[in-house]
């Protein structure tokens, strides 16, 4: 069914203009939302969940529709989109290491309480 609405001849991607215009508008709206998060100075968990949510939605629409990934075969999708998942492990490692470095710096450079306050 999904194949019927798409003309696909060896990676030849042709889709109705409406899809692009819709996604284009959506990207504008989502960017406006991200900017609003900063403009209205939302803080804490709400700020973070909204920023990440809008970011992932924008990334998803750009990759899926503008870059036509949604219509590619799973062999290509998995070859391109799975490897970056390794980065999650890298982020985890660096974050743990960062905590350790930060604590080491607190201990090594001057009164811990004073610096911790400055860092909040």
């Amino acid at each position, binding site marked *: 069914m999904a194949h019927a609405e798409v003309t696909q001849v060896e*990676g030849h991607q042709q889709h109705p203009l409406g899809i692009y215009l819709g996604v284009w508008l959506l990207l504008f709206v989502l960017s406006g939302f991200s900017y609003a998060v900063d403009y209205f100075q939302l803080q804490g968990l709400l700020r973070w969940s909204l920023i990440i949510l809008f970011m992932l939605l924008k990334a998803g629409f750009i990759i899926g529709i503008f870059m036509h990934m949604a219509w590619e*075969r*799973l062999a290509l999708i998995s070859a391109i989109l799975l490897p970056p998942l390794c980065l999650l492990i890298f982020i985890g490692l660096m974050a743990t290491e960062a905590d350790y470095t930060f604590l080491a710096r607190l201990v090594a450079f001057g009164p811990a309480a004073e610096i911790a306050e400055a860092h909040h």
Partner: protein
Amino acid sequence: MTEETLAVSTGIGADPSGLKGVVTDWSHDKQAFQVPWGKAMMWIFLLSDTFIFSCFLLGYMHVRMTTTVPWPIPSEVFALSFGGDPIPLILIAIMTFVLITSSGTMALAVNYGYRKDKKKTVLLMLATAALGVMFVSMQAFEWTKLIMDEGVRPWGNPMGAAQFGSAFFMITGFHGLHVSAGVIYLIVVARRVGTGYYDRHRGGNYEMVEITGLYWHFVDLVWVFIFAFFYLW
């Protein structure tokens, strides 16, 4: 799964889709990716570029988490006033909209390329390039303001953590270089579309416009992450 059985039962000879398709594509003695090689190669290049930008952002995350000095507040550093009170992040917001607009014109250029509408394709690609130039110009303005007025240097700044400058110049500089390269790439391909190069040498195949589009959308994609992690954090 229904489309799979449909393809098999109608006997059109289509390869299975989904996970079964992955297995067939990889295990059979044939080309693994059923796309033109140029497109597959561009995707693989973009994958490697993803890792480069991710490492920059990771390095930034690390220095920001480890510094014991307060990090300059991006919302205030990148505020701009037009006569009145400073508006937070306004230049960055405009830059974001310019880049999204360029992504839209690029998507349309690819579409018109496949419709063999040469004139619209060329015009839309040139519009994309112009918006790219606009983006880089605003970035140059932003850098100038930061260096000349705010005294931000890669090794320090008056607002707080010294690593702010190095992370900022490295990340946005590398992204700006990508945009600049993309502008050149767009102009070259647009010229080739206009002069009928692809009609003479590629049998009227405008695949190259889509490949250029992949690169350009990627540049926009990277900006989405920079905007979230560097400017909004």
